[in-house]
């Protein structure tokens, strides 16, 4: 039973990964990545890590992928050009990938980790459940936990700064004409920067 689940999830994960790099339309790539993430969550469950599997589904497949879908819908999936700066890049890259896979496998499997061939030790029933992970995070790994929260805050602020619609980008004339006005009108025209009114556009 475990073998069936493992190979089913492995095929799903690998198929999703190949779909991400092979599909032309970025929207289909995002959908393939969602398949990949769900299969990976099943693999995490097989490894008795319930909390990581739940976080994978909720955070990745739930939140991050929705963000991706929105950006793909906003940017639009343009076709990629066939021009290659390095000749034969499309054939060299899979060769390098196979070499990387062989190298990684040899490096790990030929190591002296004797427990690699086993299924791991028998663990107590609460292994990897949210209580155990939460205890570890708030006691032993408190500093990395707080640092990651700070990192999330910084990333959110950075994304807002990056994707903020600057008024001089799209309507330089309107921005210049708005500067000579009274402060009250200036503040209202800044509010309208999200959806420019016909009055503000030249």
């Amino acid at each position: 039973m475990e073998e069936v689940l493992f190979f089913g999830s492995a095929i799903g994960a690998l198929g999703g990964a190949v779909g991400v790099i092979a599909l032309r339309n970025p929207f289909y790539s995002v959908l393939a990545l969602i398949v990949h993430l769900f299969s990976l969550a099943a693999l995490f469950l097989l490894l008795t890590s319930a909390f990581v599997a739940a976080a994978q589904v909720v955070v990745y497949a739930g939140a991050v992928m929705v963000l991706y879908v929105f950006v793909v819908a906003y940017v639009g999936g343009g076709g990629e050009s066939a021009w290659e700066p390095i000749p034969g890049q499309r054939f060299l890259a899979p060769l390098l990938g196979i070499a990387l896979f062989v190298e990684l496998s040899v490096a790990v499997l030929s190591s002296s980790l004797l427990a690699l061939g086993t299924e791991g030790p028998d663990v107590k029933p609460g292994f990897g459940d949210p209580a155990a992970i939460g205890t570890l995070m708030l006691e032993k790994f408190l500093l990395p936990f707080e640092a990651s929260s700070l990192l999330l805050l910084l990333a959110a602020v950075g994304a807002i700064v990056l994707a903020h619609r600057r008024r001089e980008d799209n309507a330089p004339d309107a921005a210049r004409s708005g500067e000579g006005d009274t402060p009250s009108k200036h503040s209202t025209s800044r509010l309208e920067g999200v959806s420019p009114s016909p009055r503000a556009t030249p």
Partner: protein
Amino acid sequence: MSIEWYIVLSALLFSTGAVGILIRRSPLVILLCLELMLNAGNLALVAFSRMVGNEEGQVFAVIVMVVAACEVVVGLGLIVAIFRRRLPLNVDDLRELRG
């Protein structure tokens, strides 16, 4: 299932993501391939955590997820900024910093 199957699968997924980064041009798909590689690293972390019977590797995996979410947010913000400036969404055309 023995742990080495998970490790080999993780290496395979990592290589797939690396090939994707090498052959795709769109920065959006390159970000997706980065996700693939980070998730392969997560799978290896969780598999090793199961191998030693200790949950600390799973905390590592959760932190990696946080870092991946931050990377996605900043990367997508960059892509939206590139798109707003009407620059081409192609990593071969965006070569101003190359000197």
